[in-house]
Structure formats: C-alpha cells, structure tokens
C-alpha cells in the first residue's frame, strides 16, 4: 500500500503540474526573466513601510532600442496590481535637415541597436547598475522635491532604465522612468556629433513613441482629449471622448493632453481611474510629410501597424476606438540649431565633435488611480 501510494503521489503530482503548467498566466504574473524583469518597491529604504511598487519587463530590440513591456503599478501593498503598459517603444526618429535634404528615418530604415555602456555612463554612485552585458543602465535614485508645505517635505524616488542607440554620427538615448507616485516618463535625448557632410545645418530630431496602453488589461480602454478653454474671466476644462481613429494636434493654449481610461477601473471613491499623456515639449515640428501633421494619433490595436510614415493610412477608414484596445502615438521633437559649441574649427573647417544631449518626451500621469494622496505623511 505504501509503495502504491508513493507511485500514485508521483503520478498525480506530474499530472497536476501538467494541468497547472497549461493554465494561462494571471495578468500580473512575471512575464519575463531576470535581468529583463524589474520590480521596484518605494520607498527604496526597506526599513520604511512599503507604499507603492512597479514591475515591468524591458527588452533590447533592433531598431527600437529599449522597449518596455507589461508594466504594472500597485498603489499600496494591499491593492491589486494595475496594468498600465503592454508595449511602449520609440518607433521612429525622423530627422529632416533645413535645406530639404537629407531627411532621415533612422528607425524604420536602419537596424540600429543599443551600444554597450561603461560604468562612467551608469555610475554606481547615482544608483546605477549595468544590465545585460552593459547594454542597459538601471538607476534607482532620488528624484528631487515631490512636495513641500512650509516645514513639511517629501522627496520623491524613481527607477530609470535607459540605453543608447548608435545611429551613425548620432546617439539617441532612450530613457524610461517609473516614479514612486505612479508617474511614468518616456524621453529621448539626441547627442554625439552633427551630421558630417552638413555639420552646421539646422535640423529637427522628430521622435515618435508608440504606446500600447492596456489599462487594467487590453479591452475596455478609451481616450479623451483633455483641453483647457478660456472664455472671458472664466475657464473650462473639457475631455470629449475619441470615438474613432484619428490624428490630433497639440495646442499649447489648450494644454492638450490625452486621458486614457478603462471602463472597469475605478478607485475607492468611485471615480474612473486613468492616465494622462502630457507632452514635455518646446515646440511643434511640422514638415511636408503627412505623418508630421499631427502630434497624437489614436488607433485601434493592430500588431502589424508599426510604421510611422504609414500612420495617415492607419486611420482610413477610421475604426471605432472607444471601449476597445487602443494604441496611442505621440510625436515630439528637439530642434537643433548648430552652434560653435558643437565642435571646433581647424583651418576654417568646422569639425563636429560634441552635440550635447537635447531632450524631448512625455509624461504618463495617474489620475484618480489612488484613493487619496500617496504623499501625505
């Protein structure tokens, strides 16, 4: 009997594990292995009680550099994980020169990849750790003042992952930031050296992000256009829903932002929880190409739609996007006016040497995701 039970136990264990093996993963399960999986609790000081926590995957992808997948945020240790991102990536770098030529599409036209970093790129003293054979830097550090009210003060923290794409004479820094208050930032910095054939010619570094935001899972997402309107002495803030696929323009007078919500996600106050896509920009790049005519694009998820110059065709015919699986595209730019500080003159010829980093990006800020302020002591 004993041996029969032993055999039975083994058989059952195998069969049982087969059953569980085949069961789909829960949505918040770890979906990648180390070092591609990052989980960060805040505050980072483990002697203090945990408040919030991020977990996400990253991957190195030829062309796109550093891609974020399956990013989840938890507002407290007892709260459920909320999915924020399924896939977030820089999808194009469009660099037109002022004379009309060249007009580089650095991501779709070349398989540029991340280059290896050194400890000088990612010092341990700044909370840096090099990952994946030094292709990616992870930094966990203080992010400055988060809040103060006279004598009361709260400093914030963040975890940042970044890598650099070697794109010929240029390097592009792809950076993703996850903050303790649930905010996420995507930024790109253009650096290295000016284009040697035309080193003193002004140009634009147009950056496109493709953000597959799956709040609380992929169905049921909707996008609203946040717009501020002044009228005489009063003002109003509107947020009409985007009903069909569309391209939208950023209006500095309207503080245009996209509000992404999920029909099933509400906080304890009963308010719809969401994330606001807020541009961090210094201007608006418009060029002859049709794909530069809008700053935001809202499309229905299609895995093969990954080519920025085709964006105008993705919204024709315009399919419904309310309460569905949506993808948001954001376009920003860094305007580069070459200066003598970019290099040096040898025999009256300008040699491009040091184009210092110029940044552009966006913020994804939680809105009614927490039940109350996460910062009050």
């Amino acid at each position, binding site marked *: *009997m*004993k041996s029969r039970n032993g055999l*039975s136990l083994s058989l*059952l264990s195998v*069969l*049982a594990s*087969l*059953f569980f*093996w*085949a069961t*789909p*993963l829960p949505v918040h399960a770890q*979906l*990648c*292995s180390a070092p*591609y999986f990052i989980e960060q609790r805040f505050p980072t000081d483990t002697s203090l009680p945990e408040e919030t926590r991020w977990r996400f*995957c990253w*991957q*190195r*992808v*030829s062309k796109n550099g550093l891609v974020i*997948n*399956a990013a989840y945020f938890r507002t407290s240790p007892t709260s459920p994980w909320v999915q924020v991102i399924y*896939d977030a990536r820089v999808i194009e770098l469009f660099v037109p020169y002022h*004379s*009309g*030529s*060249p*007009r*580089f*599409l*650095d*991501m*779709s*036209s*070349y*398989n540029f990849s991340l*280059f*290896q970093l050194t400890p000088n790129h990612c010092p341990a003293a700044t909370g840096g750790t090099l990952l994946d054979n030094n292709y990616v830097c992870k930094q966990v550090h203080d992010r400055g003042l988060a809040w103060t009210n006279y004598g009361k003060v709260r400093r914030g923290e963040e975890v940042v992952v970044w890598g650099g794409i*070697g794109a*010929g*004479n240029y390097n592009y820094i792809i950076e993703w930031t996850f903050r303790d208050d649930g905010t996420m930032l995507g930024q790109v910095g253009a650096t290295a*050296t000016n284009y*040697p*054939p*035309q*080193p003193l010619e002004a140009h634009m570094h147009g950056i496109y992000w493709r953000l597959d935001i799956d709040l609380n899972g*992929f*169905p049921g997402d909707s996008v609203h256009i946040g717009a501020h309107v002044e009228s005489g002495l009063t003002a109003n803030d509107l947020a009409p829903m985007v009903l069909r696929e569309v391209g939208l323009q950023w209006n500095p007078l309207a503080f245009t932002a996209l509000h992404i919500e999920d029909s099933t996600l509400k906080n304890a106050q009963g308010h719809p929880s969401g994330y606001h896509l807020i541009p961090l920009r210094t201007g608006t790049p418009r060029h002859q*190409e049709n794909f530069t005519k809008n700053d935001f694009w809202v499309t229905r*998820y299609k*895995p*093969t739609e990954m*080519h920025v*110059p085709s964006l105008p065709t993705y919204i024709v015919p315009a399919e419904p996007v309310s309460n569905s*699986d949506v993808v948001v595209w954001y376009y920003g730019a860094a305007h580069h006016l070459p200066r003598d500080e970019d290099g040096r003159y040898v025999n009256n*010829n300008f*040699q*491009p*040497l040091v184009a210092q980093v110029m940044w552009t990006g966006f913020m994804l800020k939680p809105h009614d995701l927490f039940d109350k302020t996460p910062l009050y002591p």
Partner: protein
Amino acid sequence: MLSFFFLPIAPGHLSASVWRIFWALTLAFLFQLLPTQLKSACAQTPPHGTLLFDPLTAEEREVATRVAEDNPRVRDLRGSGRQQLVSVELATPKTGKESDEGSRHAEVLYYRYEGNQGVLALVDLGQRTVREVTRINGDAVPLVTAEVNDALALALKHKELINLLGPTYQQYQVATQNAPETQPNRVEALRLLASSAKDPCYQHRCLSLLFRQGETFLTGTSVIVDLTAQTVRVEQPGRTSTPSVRRKRK
C-alpha cells in the same frame, strides 16, 4: 486543487475497492482534461524557463527562420532575385484568445531589391507554423550591416573617393557597434529615402556613407551608394570641384 488530489491518499485505512473507484474517477477526470490542456501546453509552452517577453533564444531564431523559409507563400513573395534576410525579432501579438496566452512568436523580415519590397512573416514558434505573411513597402525595411559592407566595397572602387581618402583608403571598415572608438578608420552609414520620383534614389536602396578618421569625419562630402542600381555618387555641395553626378537638392 492540489489538496483535492492529495487528500484521499492520506488515510491509509481505505479499502482496495474504494481506492479503485477513486483512481478510476480521478483518471477519468484528468483524461478528460488532458487532450486540450496537454495539446495546448505542448504546443505553446516556450523552451524551459523562457517567458513571454524574454528575448528569442538562438534556437528559436533558427526555428523561426527555417519555418519562414519553408513556407510556400513566403518563398513566393521573396521571389528569386537579389534579397536579404533583415531581422528575426520577438513578436508578442495580442489575439484576445485564451489559447494564445504565453505563446511565443517571432517576426522574420526579408527585403527583395526587385520592386523595393519587404516580406514579413509572423511565425508561431510553438506550432512551428507561419501565422501571417505581409508584403510591406521597402522603405519600411531597415538596412543591415551586410548591406553597408556591400556599399563600402562599391564605394572604395570610386576614384574620386579614393583621392579624398588618401593612400590608406583600403583600411576603412564598417564601424562595429560596440567598439567604435578602437577603429581608427571607420565608416558609418545612414539610409537615404527620396520622396521625389526625379531623385535617383526614389524607390531604391540608398545610403550615405560617413568616413571617420579617429575623432574627425570627412566633412563637406557626401558619399551616396545606391545598392539597387549598384552605383556610387560622391558630392561636395560646398565646393566647386565637379562630382561624378550632382545630387539634386530639393
């Protein structure tokens, strides 16, 4: 669920007939599950320890390429002319089907010079099948290092460029991504896309080569290689010397 399985084993005093009934019921229950669950598990579960967003393994890349190349539709679209395998990348399409949860996919991308076209195959690595084949505009297909090497070889036959580079012209090599500073004479490349049909690079695979000696680039000169037409143009926009072919400025 585990306690459901293990509970009946603990009491050692059950009679043999009770055990037989228990086993019959349990196995019947499990076998009812097995056809779908096992099929699903065997077909979709990635290699041991590989999760949905983990990078492709070398074996998965090889499988993806082989499955794509064996597919008649892919072969048909690739044609028999000059072509290039461009990339094999992890793909994580959302299908909304529970059966697709956790399944691993790869995208295999080819470029064919004839007609300036790309062929993109989505390979289901578990099922070892091509799920979708798409023809895409060649402008959306990135260059690969092998093409830059071809372009450099073509360029280094151009007399005007040889004169500009000097006697050490044969020492130039395509820059490797990870150690650019250790290569004294290196070449970097940027893709050129033409939007006007009058431009010789229109619908062609063109790139601009940047020649770098130490810290400094060969400035004021454009070296444009057309891989489709297999031609090289050396242009000096700010100079009066006559290039082999002037590039029309827009």
